[in-house]
């Protein structure tokens, strides 16, 4: 198995531990990766709020780069995944617009988006391409006894037509991965809510409150740790947890892992190799065997 790895911006910036964990997990799973060092930011929905056509051109270019490699895209950020799938559906649904985009893409980059590439998040690849049974066979250090709260992130669940969840209003895809790794999934009311990251710089109070509600809900449900497929959620939930604790006046100390980190741990990768020491809320205590 081989994929074109689309890193997105955060995995190259403030979330480099995610990239490290993705490589380690894929090495153990014998999934080959060809990192798309030439692909640009997906726009995170923000460039599209400024200039939809520029955002669409950036993404059409990314798809063409994967098509050139003859590989499907592996995303490791649900925001990138959501934007990619939404954009692709928009382009594919309108032949006239697709032709116009391709004319401009050809003019400015010499490329063409054909429409053959498939776009999948790491966790979707585990579920649908790799298979949970195969994943279970690779587990050498089952996470027995670890109570894991999955935080999906908006783009993984909404709008429902751009994701592959069987039941987007009550999904269990991440929980099924958690179970396959030997851990115990914990469900809580806020697992499908927004973390508030997109408005962090515009309305910090609201952003912190949204994350606070999720962390508090997971904690109340008995979680030892939270896992997320979105590094933007991770930033809010982990890096801002001290501010969140003081805003909601509650001690949380809930470590947040990226999904490839959780997978890699069960596959026997060391905590150090997964750079968990860079997390603001250190997960070592929660991960230590009881």
């Amino acid at each position, binding site marked *: 198995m081989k994929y074109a790895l689309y890193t997105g*911006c955060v995995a190259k910036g403030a979330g480099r531990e995610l990239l490290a964990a993705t490589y380690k997990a894929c090495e153990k799973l014998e999934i080959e990766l060809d990192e798309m060092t030439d692909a640009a930011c997906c726009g995170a929905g923000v460039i599209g709020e400024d200039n*939809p056509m*520029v955002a669409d051109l950036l993404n059409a270019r990314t798809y063409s780069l994967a098509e050139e490699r003859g590989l499907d895209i592996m995303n490791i950020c649900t925001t990138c995944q959501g934007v990619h799938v939404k954009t692709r559906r928009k382009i594919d649904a309108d032949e006239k617009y697709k032709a116009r985009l391709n004319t401009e893409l050809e003019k400015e980059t010499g490329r063409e988006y054909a429409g053959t590439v498939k776009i999948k998040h790491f966790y979707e690849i585990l579920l649908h391409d790799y298979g949970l049974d195969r994943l279970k066979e690779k587990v050498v250090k089952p996470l027995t006894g670890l109570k894991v709260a999955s935080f999906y992130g908006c783009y993984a669940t909404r709008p429902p037509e751009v994701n592959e969840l069987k039941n987007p209003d009550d999904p269990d895809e991440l929980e099924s991965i958690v179970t396959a790794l030997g851990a115990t999934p914990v469900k809580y009311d806020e697992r499908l809510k927004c973390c508030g990251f997109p408005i962090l710089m515009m309305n910090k109070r609201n952003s912190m409150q949204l994350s606070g509600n999720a962390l508090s809900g997971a904690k109340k449900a008995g979680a030892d740790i939270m896992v997320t497929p979105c590094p933007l959620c991770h930033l809010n939930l982990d890096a801002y947890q001290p501010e969140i604790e003081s805003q909601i006046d509650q001690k949380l100390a809930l470590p947040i892992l990226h999904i490839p980190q959780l997978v890699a741990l069960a596959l026997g990768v060391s905590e150090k190799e997964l750079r968990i020491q860079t997390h603001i809320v250190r997960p070592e205590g929660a991960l230590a065997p009881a």
Partner: protein
Amino acid sequence: MSNGEVTFIIERFDPEKDTAPYPQEYKVILEPGQTLLNCLNNIKWTQDQTLAYRYSCGSAICGSCAMRINGKAVLACKTQVSDCVKDGVIRLAPIGNTKVVRDLVVDLEPFWNALKRVRPYLTPDSQDAPEKEREQTAEEFSKIDPSTTCIMCGACYSDCNVLEVDNQFLGPVALAKAHRFIFDSRDGGGHQRLTEISETNGIWDCTHCGECTTRCPTETKPLSRIEEIKVKAMAEGHHGNAGARHVLGFRETVGRRGLLDENYLPLRTVGFFNIPGLLSIMPVGLRMMWRGKNPPMIPHYVDKVGEVNNIFARFEEFRK
């Protein structure tokens, strides 16, 4: 559900005598093609006349019967029971982000107040009475076609994530209504409207979580309308707020390097001379640096960045 029996667990509450909402169970024998509203009427007419809920047209036009089914807002008259039964059970509750008047009936006053704040009426350029009606072409109407389909049922308002934590946020229904006037060719107040909803509690406080569009039973799809307002606000130079500066930060760094510069973006959004703002983000910056989590000081460029630069060089042209 083998015998066609469905258990409805309905959240009951009468603030005059109950201290907290409580669940009450009703059993209904399901017949093919029944909507939730059919079943609620059945319960009220044959089992419990005290059950309170709103409805009127029964045809997804009046917007009266929004309620939460299994935790998500829908129109009771537009929802087939068979689509939402889980293990023979359906849970009904009043819509969220509102105060309960009784059972499934809520106080919509804050909802209507939010709508009033966006002045939901045409404000023409000239107050002089025109000689004939103000005409609109089909193409002009197409821009407001989706936002005019709103039936103001409150499903989006109910499940809006931001409203859950801030009741001052205008919210999806009011912003979709603002869209309907901002993009109306007969309205003369567009600039002022954009200025107002670019401020705190407006478009830039939306997290684009997508809940409003997911719950919307019409073609209004509030998130798409909010995105269109943002595009217009950016194009027309409403840049004096953190939301717009955030967008400009994306445009500047992605346009130059292909990837986002996460060191530059917060400073650009907060404002380079906004000392209290900069001080407020300093703790997280230092914390991340201490752990070695801070973004690299020398930001990355993507390979073949010239292609990205070429796309951004025609930024204004691509707006058209």
